[in-house]
């Protein structure tokens, strides 16, 4: 029995099955709403918007509509997205999330359209209504974000008390901490006494402890501590400033600034050696970060105040050398930007590609070019400018990839259309006879097999497979008849796609050159301002050196006087 099964030649069976298996294809989504939803969700989260749209092309549930609306927004189809969001706002389950999304969209459209004041007012009241709805109907992060935006609107409209009331109704976490930090900044600008600002910062610090995203929370906490330290220092409460600044994590983005201020507060208390230790640590960071250039000068000043004039002179000289070398770096960077463009010189060259993820560690903070990029990206306008170039760059890459795929498809379809060898419709008689013989052999073998044995099971599976092959073979004739028409339709689709792809590429190239020009201009202005900052720092260092030498000269004159 075993030998007979072996004679069935599975390879031949498989070849036959593949031959008959090539059906008309083209699946809609999977046809299983639960599976479609899961796939669309994963696709959206991983940036595959085309797949997300494909699997939600006929949204039946509100969840599907929400995913589709997000994918539509990501692909620039705001009108279609708004229609879906409006339906969701009137729906049952995602009212909060939809309202928040629409309110975000309103901010973007206001910025893009530059609406008149009246429109702006209407926009604002509409946005307030949406945010209120999101805060009432949303859950978790959605609700907190809505509250935060409402508080921000109240704050920017000169209603800090209302903003405070909204913040007081929020749960602890990132969003409430952010709200309190902003309110503290307002208080710090308005009040002569720092108490209200410091209290707000302390509340923000307590709130941020509850942020489940630890990395984000730590970054915000470091920023809060630096702000509190600066506020206390400016109000000459040095002990308080030191107590805040000592808590700034050494691995954070705010560390260099924190170290500089820490040194400043210590120095104000007369602890020059300790101050110099902090400044020495700050000096290890690139000069792009706030506080680093000042720390270089601070070291010289510290030696000076501690009475080590020789070391002070050396410290000023090394500060001056480092500023000078930074000016050269900035000049080279500016040349590189003019030559290659800002995106290539600063962003693409900053080791941000996926392939180099294993190199991305805390040392990234100590790379001068990354430091300048990070500082440049602090500004919202800069982020937008880089986003534009990155989006267009990615789109052009995707279009190039799509063009390659479509060209291959066009070639394959052309070949298939030209190939008339398999045009004979239907199944050959020899094949049908072979097939029938195979069926008979299997059924006789099944009769001989012991019921329930392994062989019987295996034969049953083979019989099922043959039945499947028979089904496919039954449909084969009709498929072959339609073959040319199908291939022709597909070929036409490929042709249309290629034409439209070429048009799109041209538009994208034009937009990219415009976006690149805008980014280059921005980055060059930024680099120039940084170079100016270095020049000022250099002049200060040279001034200090001159003062020191003058003093030393006068002293030596005094000593040599009779």
């Amino acid at each position, binding site marked *: 029995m075993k030998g007979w099964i072996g004679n069935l030649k599975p390879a031949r069976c498989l070849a036959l099955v593949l031959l008959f298996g090539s059906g008309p294809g083209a699946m809609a989504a999977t046809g299983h709403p639960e599976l479609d939803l899961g796939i669309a969700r994963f696709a959206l989260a991983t940036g595959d918007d*085309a797949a997300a749209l494909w699997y939600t092309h006929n949204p039946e549930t509100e969840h599907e509509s929400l995913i589709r609306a997000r994918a539509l927004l990501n692909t620039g189809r705001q009108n279609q997205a708004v229609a879906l969001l409006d339906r969701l706002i009137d729906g049952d389950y995602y009212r909060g999330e939809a309202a928040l999304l629409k309110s975000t969209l309103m901010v973007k459209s206001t910025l893009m359209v530059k609406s008149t004041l009246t429109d702006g007012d209407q926009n604002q009241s509409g946005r307030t209504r949406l945010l209120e709805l999101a805060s009432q109907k949303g859950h978790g992060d959605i609700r907190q974000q809505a509250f935060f935006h409402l508080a921000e609107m109240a704050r920017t409209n000169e209603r800090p008390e209302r903003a405070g009331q909204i913040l007081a109704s929020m749960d602890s976490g990132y969003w409430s901490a952010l709200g309190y930090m902003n309110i503290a900044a307002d208080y710090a600008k308005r009040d002569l006494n720092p108490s209200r600002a410091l209290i707000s910062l302390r509340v923000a610090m307590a709130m941020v402890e509850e942020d489940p995203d630890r990395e984000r929370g730590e970054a915000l906490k470091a920023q809060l501590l630096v702000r509190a330290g600066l506020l206390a220092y400016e109000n000459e409460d040095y002990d308080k400033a030191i107590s805040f600044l000592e808590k700034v994590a050494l691995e954070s983005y705010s560390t260099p600034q924190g170290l500089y201020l820490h040194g400043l507060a210590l120095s104000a208390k007369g602890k020059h050696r300790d101050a110099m230790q902090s400044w020495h640590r700050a000096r290890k960071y690139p000069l792009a970060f706030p506080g680093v250039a000042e720390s270089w000068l601070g070291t010289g000043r510290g030696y000076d105040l501690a009475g080590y004039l020789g070391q002070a002179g050396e410290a000023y000289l090394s500060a001056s050398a480092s500023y000078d070398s930074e000016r050269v770096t900035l000049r080279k960077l500016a040349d590189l930007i003019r030559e290659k463009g800002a995106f290539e010189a600063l962003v693409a060259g900053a080791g941000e590609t996926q392939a180099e993820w294993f190199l991305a560690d805390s040392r990234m903070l100590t790379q001068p070019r990354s430091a300048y990029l990070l500082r440049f990206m602090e500004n919202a306008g800069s982020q937008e400018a880089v986003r534009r170039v990155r989006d267009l760059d990615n789109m052009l890459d995707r279009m190039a990839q799509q063009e390659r795929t479509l060209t291959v498809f066009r070639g394959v*379809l052309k070949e298939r259309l030209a190939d008339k060898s398999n045009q004979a419709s239907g199944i050959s008689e020899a094949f049908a006879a072979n097939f029938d013989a195979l069926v008979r052999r299997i059924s006789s073998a099944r009769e001989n097999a012991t019921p329930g044995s392994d062989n019987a099971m295996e034969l049953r599976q083979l019989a099922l497979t043959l039945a499947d092959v028979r089904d496919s073979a039954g449909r084969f004739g009709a498929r072959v008849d339609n073959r040319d028409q199908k291939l022709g339709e*597909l070929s036409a689709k490929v042709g249309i796609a290629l034409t439209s792809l070429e048009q799109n590429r041209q538009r994208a190239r034009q937009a990219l050159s415009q976006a690149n020009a805008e980014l280059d201009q921005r980055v060059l202005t930024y680099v120039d301002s940084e170079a100016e900052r270095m020049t000022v720092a250099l002049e200060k260092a040279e001034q200090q050196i001159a003062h020191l030498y003058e003093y030393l000269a006068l002293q030596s004159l005094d000593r040599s006087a009779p």
Partner: protein
Amino acid sequence: MVGIHPAVRQVKPYIAALQGIGKLVCVLALGFVLAASITQVENAQADTAQAEELASLDREIDAIKSDLASLSQALFELEESVLYPADTQVAVFLALKDKNGLALDSVELYLNGSPVSSHLYTDRERESLRKGGVQRLYIGNLPHGGHQLKVILTARSANERFIRREMRHQFRKRPGESRIQMTLDAAAPDYEPVVSFQEWK
């Protein structure tokens, strides 16, 4: 009639001169204010023009994005029709049942002993799976009949263990699209991964 004090008389020409200077200063100040406001208006106009330009660039980028998305969808459809005909199509999906039991590091997929797919997970992907996302690990063609699917996964369990497990599943490719969903579960207290296979008809 009150006479003018001689000292005042002496100072008068200076006062007149000062008044003249005052007028000149006033005119100059007015001029500066006007010049400043003209510069401000010009700056504001330049800012508005630049903002308009950027807004139109943003609109163009959105339009290109939208067209690209339509193209991507068309290509997606074409790929499905040209590369994966329905009768031989097999797709393998992965989902998580227990949200916090396992953090996936990688998955390798073998069909009839041949490696067909492998994936290293990013935080974003892990998070999406945790929230109910379903990942399409593989799509390809297979002939009708019996086949074996082998999956090797490495993960970190909630009790801080590194896990590498190998699972196998026998299935039969039938006519029409075949979809196999692997659902990964790792329940407390030992967080031992268990994979269940579901075939969607």
